[in-house]
């Protein structure tokens, strides 16, 4: 039996205002009020966590609404239902042992409580190991975030020459000595050199650089009949999935499909990566609480940190309960 209750009644009688509860802060009337306040504060924090993940789920929802074929492809080729289910079972079991640990601390069974907390921590380790196994497959195929960031492509091709010419000749019509033109921008060529530069720049064919040009295989195609609406464009992937023909591998796909798959994986890695970071933070909190429990700081009288860390761990489980069907079970 723990002697936590005995400690709390005998330590520092001058500090507890005579109520024998050193953990009771002076601005609370009763331990129950303090406990309820701690829980309320934690729930407000959990509310903000739900809103944060809600934003990521919104990105998921919008992109899946617009490109269901990408999600189907990724779920079938990259997301293993087996490992997702294993992760779900690991997290649910660790939630169970966490809630059990809270109960055990409440009834002063400290030794079994520590064992439960350690099992919960191991559940977190198992979850991150499975996550590593899943991420490895994607790393090999170069579908990690950033791999497809080729924003510099906007400035390649026909646009480069014009941009380079503008940059090389400097600002046309600049005032001498760096003075500010009181009439606003007057890019008027003054010298013969600037006139020549202006003529050179004007001679380069103007190119309308649209933000999505680099995604569009039809860019710069003179034949108007070939140009189709970008988002409705018939691409190999959606056609293949619709007609059940051979679905290409990622490296064999058209550029447009590859970029869309890369966008999906940005969403995927942000969702599961942020969740993984939360798992790691939860593991650190559980380790801290376990050490304090072993040190005899908690018992029937005071167990608030165990309860609060438990709430955080259950939220991590909650988020995964929604992530699993949305990412892995798509057909």
């Amino acid at each position, binding site marked *: 039996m723990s002697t936590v209750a005995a400690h709390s009644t005998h330590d520092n009688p001058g500090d507890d205002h005579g109520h024998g509860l050193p953990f009771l802060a002076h601005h609370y009337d*009763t331990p129950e009020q303090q406990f309820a306040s701690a829980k309320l504060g934690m729930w407000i924090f959990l509310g903000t966590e739900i809103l944060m993940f809600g934003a990521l789920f919104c990105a998921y929802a919008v992109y899946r609404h617009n490109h269901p074929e990408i999600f189907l492809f990724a779920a079938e080729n990259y997301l293993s239902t087996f490992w997702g289910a294993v992760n779900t079972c690991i997290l649910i079991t660790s939630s169970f042992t966490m809630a059990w640990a809270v109960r055990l601390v409440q009834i002063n069974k400290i030794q079994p409580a520590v064992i439960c907390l350690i099992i919960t921590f191991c559940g977190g380790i198992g979850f991150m190991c499975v996550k590593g196994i899943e991420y490895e497959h994607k790393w090999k195929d170069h579908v990690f975030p950033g791999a497809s960031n080729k924003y510099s492509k906007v400035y390649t091709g026909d646009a480069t020459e014009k941009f380079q010419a503008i940059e090389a000749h400097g600002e046309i019509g600049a005032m001498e000595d760096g003075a500010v033109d009181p009439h606003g921008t007057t890019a008027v060529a003054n010298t013969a050199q600037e006139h020549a530069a202006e003529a050179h720049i004007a001679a380069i064919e103007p190119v309308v650089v649209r933000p999505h040009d680099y995604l569009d295989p039809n860019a710069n195609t*003179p034949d108007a009949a070939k140009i189709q609406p970008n988002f409705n464009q018939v691409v190999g992937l959606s056609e293949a999935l619709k007609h059940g023909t051979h679905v290409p591998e990622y490296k064999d796909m058209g550029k447009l499909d590859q970029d869309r798959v890369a966008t999906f994986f940005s969403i995927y890695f942000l969702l599961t990566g942020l969740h993984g970071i939360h798992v790691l933070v939860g593991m650190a909190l559980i380790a801290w609480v376990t050490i304090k429990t072993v040190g005899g700081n908690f018992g029937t009288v005071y167990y608030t940190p165990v309860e609060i860390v438990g709430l955080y761990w259950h939220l991590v489980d909650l988020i995964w309960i929604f992530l699993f069907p*949305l990412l892995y079970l798509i057909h």
Partner: protein
Amino acid sequence: MEPTVTHLETRPVDLGKPQHHKIEAHAHAVPFRTLLFTFVALMILTMLTVASHEVDFGSANIWVALVIAFVKASIVALYFMHLRWDSPFNSIILVTSLLFVTLFLGAAITDSSEYQRNYTLPTAGAPVQQ
């Protein structure tokens, strides 16, 4: 009259039954059987989720998965997170945040449906349409 908290129970009390009305230093501990049944229910629902993946409900696929996920989440919140025995204010916080997430997603998806099909590429050389 002395407040009751100065006389603390130092031996474990039978917490098998919820003790809502006694003011004491320790609050309600969830009975082990409740925790166990909650765990079993969650595992069964997980297996149900995976099994429902084998069946094709057409466009209702995602809704079936989400309904099961919602039931699982409710069980975790009510029993593991103690909301069933807590002050209802904690539940209000959870429900309110979920409400706002639903509003967010609903508005975003509705907006996507409105405009997505209307984009067309301008022909080469023509000014960009606004």
